[in-house]
């Protein structure tokens, strides 16, 4: 028999802890961290966390906490380069990172289109996104990033509704080696095999919700 007060206490803990965590996450997102150098996410990534397409600032809403934490850790260590994000990530405490990434992961984002494998490509861009090009060892984007670019698990972020300018910048960074924090160099190989025009086209395809050309 567990004493009632212990049951009460543990359930209080259960309910109070996550909400405090969420409140902290929301605060970091909208007002920034304790350290003033940890600026609010929303000032660049938008009040809805969906990024700023014109500036190429990425969508964060709905990305997995694991992926976001890894990126922040990589900005801290310098294994991912960005003049704005490196000092900012260093200014966030571990607790703040854990809180804000959980908050961002839970933020609503437009759903990836409900596409299935049976869909056939109707133009070369869609063919690259769905099937890849095996003569150059390029898997289809959706084979790892999920149907319609929905994102899969902790390691494969969504591509759908990510600003085109951001996707282009990242693919180009992998192509020229300035970004190299992908596990097992999975993206470097793919990006290097792509042409500049393909990078632009496939980025636009996912930014527009992976619907162009497809039915």
């Amino acid at each position, binding site marked *: 028999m567990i004493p009632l007060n212990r049951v009460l206490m543990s359930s209080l803990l259960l309910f109070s802890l996550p909400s405090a965590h969420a409140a902290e996450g929301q605060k970091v997102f909208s007002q920034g961290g304790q350290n003033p150098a940890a600026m609010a996410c929303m000032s660049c990534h938008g009040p809805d966390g969906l990024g700023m397409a014109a500036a190429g600032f990425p969508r964060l809403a709905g990305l997995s906490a694991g992926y976001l934490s890894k990126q922040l850790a990589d900005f801290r260590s310098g294994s991912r380069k960005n003049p704005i994000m490196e000092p900012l990530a260093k200014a966030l405490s571990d607790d703040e990172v854990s809180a804000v990434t959980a908050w961002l992961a839970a933020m609503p984002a437009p759903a990836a289109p409900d596409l*299935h*494998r*049976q869909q*056939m*490509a109707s133009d070369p861009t869609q063919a690259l996104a769905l*099937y*890849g090009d*095996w003569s150059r*060892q*390029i*898997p289809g984007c959706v*084979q*790892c990033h*999920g*149907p319609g670019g*929905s*994102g*899969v*698990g902790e*390691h494969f972020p969504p591509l759908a509704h990510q600003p085109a300018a951001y996707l282009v910048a990242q693919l180009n960074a992998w192509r020229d080696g300035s970004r190299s924090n992908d*596990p*097992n160099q*999975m993206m470097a*190989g*793919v990006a290097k095999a792509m042409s500049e025009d393909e990078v632009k086209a496939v980025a636009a395809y996912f930014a527009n919700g992976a619907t162009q050309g497809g039915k």
Partner: protein
Amino acid sequence: MMKTLLIASLALAFGQAHAAPIAMEDQSQLKVPPASKTPFFVPPSEKELPDNAYGKMIRDGYALFVDTKRLAPKYVGNGLNCSNCHIDQGRLAHSAPLWGAYPMYPAYRKKNDKVNTFAERLQGCFQFSMNGTPPAADSPEITALSVYAYWLASKAPIGVEPAGRGYPDVNPPAGGYDLKRGAEVFQAQCALCHGGNGEGQKVGADYVMPPLWGKDSYNWGAGMHRINTAASFIKYNMPLGKPGSLSDQQAWDVAAFVNSHERPQDPRLVDGSVEKTRVKFHANDGVNLYGQTVGGVLIGQGTGK
């Protein structure tokens, strides 16, 4: 009395389910051309699909091939799609392409002195690789898949082994394979996509990355349960987009590690006995761990329902 009757009829039904004929009992390998032979065959492009009943059936076959679990749930007992083991929609050389398989059937197998048709080969895939119930040979599913394979093999010579067919053999390493080293390769190279416990990854109800063992993976009768076959597939196809990046030793080690885990029982199970099944179907079927004891545990007990 009533209860005994019920149990008896249940037992009968169960017994019958197990005694159901298996279209392609012999799952042993046909000879595969060596990897040194450069593949030259180019399957037709989707752009060339005719806008008529033939084109439509090819599209149906394609859809079934890449989205098998979702479109043919009656026949698929696990979480897999044909395209999981036949990369690039059955087009890629050294990934058991359909254009390499279709022209090789009907195939004669000396071991059981039997001729197997392409339809029976497909039924074998459903029974073992998909751990399911094979559609009838004249079903819309087998017909559409056969038409898709026939179309991919357009202009290929019949009865000639084309270079790029199957998964090329990878010579077994001189010192054998090692499960512990295999586990290390798995964690470093495979777990990111297939999960730390080989469980695969889903979006919604559907697997994006297939499970490699457990109840949603291929069963103990599938060709992929052979360590030599899995090593060949892995060496020439995995990690996705990086074929040939693992050494022969790594491919064998990780194939053995994957195939040392439990998966659904071999549907050819003889008298409920793993040992009898091993003797009849596994003892002379390449390199495999079915019915063997590793670390004091009998392998091949199946995952249950």
